[in-house]
């Protein structure tokens, strides 16, 4: 697989390590009333879709950035690559303006 890094261009997937579902960016708030259930679900439960999957890859052998890669789990085709910090910031901005 080739991951088209937003800053560095096309890089071999071997340079990266895989963490999992991009939902792992969204940590539950630890002081909320149902934090126990929230962290259980956050840590252990997965959507695990067959088809498009947004997932976290770490460019360990490169610039050590975290990426959010959109990939089809039935074909391994990668359709979108974003910097994870951009995804997280966009989410925070969206939450702040609500």
């Amino acid at each position, binding site marked *: 697989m080739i991951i088209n890094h937003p800053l560095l261009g096309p890089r071999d997937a*071997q340079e990266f390590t895989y963490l*999992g579902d991009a939902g792992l960016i969204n940590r539950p708030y630890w002081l909320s009333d149902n934090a126990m259930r929230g962290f259980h*679900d956050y*840590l252990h439960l997965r959507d695990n879709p*067959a088809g498009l999957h947004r997932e976290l890859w770490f460019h360990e052998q490169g610039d050590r950035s975290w990426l959010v890669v959109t990939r089809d*789990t039935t074909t391994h085709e990668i359709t979108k690559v974003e910097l994870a910090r951009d995804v997280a910031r966009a989410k925070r901005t969206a939450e702040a303006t609500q």
Partner: protein
Amino acid sequence: MRYSALRLIKESLIGHKGWGAQWRDPDPKDAYDYVIIGGGGHGLATAYYLAKEFQGARIAVLEKGWIGGGNVGRNTTIIRSNYLLDGNEPFYEFSLKLWENLEQDLNYNAMVSQRGILNLVHSDAQRDAARRRGNAMLLNGSDAMLLDKEGVRRLYPFLNFDNARFPIKGGLLHPRGGTVRHDAVAWGYARGADQRGVDIIQNCEVTGFKIKEGRLLGVETSRGYIGAKKVGVSVAGSSGRVMAMAGMRLPIESHVLQAFVSEGLKPFIPGVITYGAGHFYCSQSDKGGLVFGGDIDGYNSYAQRGNLPVVEDVVESGMSLIPGLGRARLLRSWGGIMDMSMDGSPFIDKTLIEGLYFNGGWCYGGFKATPAAGFCFAHLLKTGRPHETAKAYRLDRFMTGHIIDEKGQGAQPNLH
């Protein structure tokens, strides 16, 4: 029809015209007491034991494609009972005992071959861990022998003992472990279940569940609606997809694992060898091909094929352990989809939906569990209570803290 040597002689005289089909090809009925989703090893074993041991009646097995076409036909055929933890080892020992009597029970030649499994150790720390694991195995009625370097050399003189980075210091031998002809397991259970009245319905894909007020009423399939009192899901690799239809999220990710077979060679590996310094294991099939595998690819996948970096990694590990491997040509490689669970251990449990039961999350170790998983799942379906050896395989164990993490990796499925 009972298979025997006498029967074989008789058939050979009349041109093998009297064998007939091994199981029927029935159309689905309107309703069953028990519906098992998934006609793989586990599903067929569940139906077999449900009919034979637990006097279940009106049972159907629904299979999307053809029986035995999933992971039971794609694995590397190893059976073993060499686990460490209390939640696991009694279960796998129970499974190995069922394997030992499988062919007599099924009247089917599954080529169960207890040729011994050797886990190599390369350091003092690994030897300590092997001794501890061996003792845990002995305490649970399994068998284990700690071998020194010379003991390993007597068994496998061709290994790379003096590898500068990972010299072989010994190994933990599990003599009752071995290999089985994997397809014959599915066929044997199918035939046995069919003889006891189980309807095995192929080309019948489940497309949805009918659930009313928290109670399961039946399943929608590509061949029409089928009512059911109890439904057992046993669909390794597709667990996430099937349970999503019932609105459940699972502590499982689907990953691809590759396996490999070399060209046929004269007998040279009598047992199963696993490398202690990399993820690599190897045995030789009765046809002569070296059957080997290694790590999962490490990313979510439903593609049933892997990528080349892992091929390179597995073959490198193999070459560093068995230098002679380099003279053999690789014949085939393929991939299968694994339910990788959050602690590397499986689930055999009821769900919050009444009448819906789940068996899955076997990671890449489901084949060896086939008989016991079938037996324990049948026990759960019939009695509503977990079998004694499978009581740790609960879906809520991450909430209660009773995780069974053999490798101590935490909730990171691609590391188990």
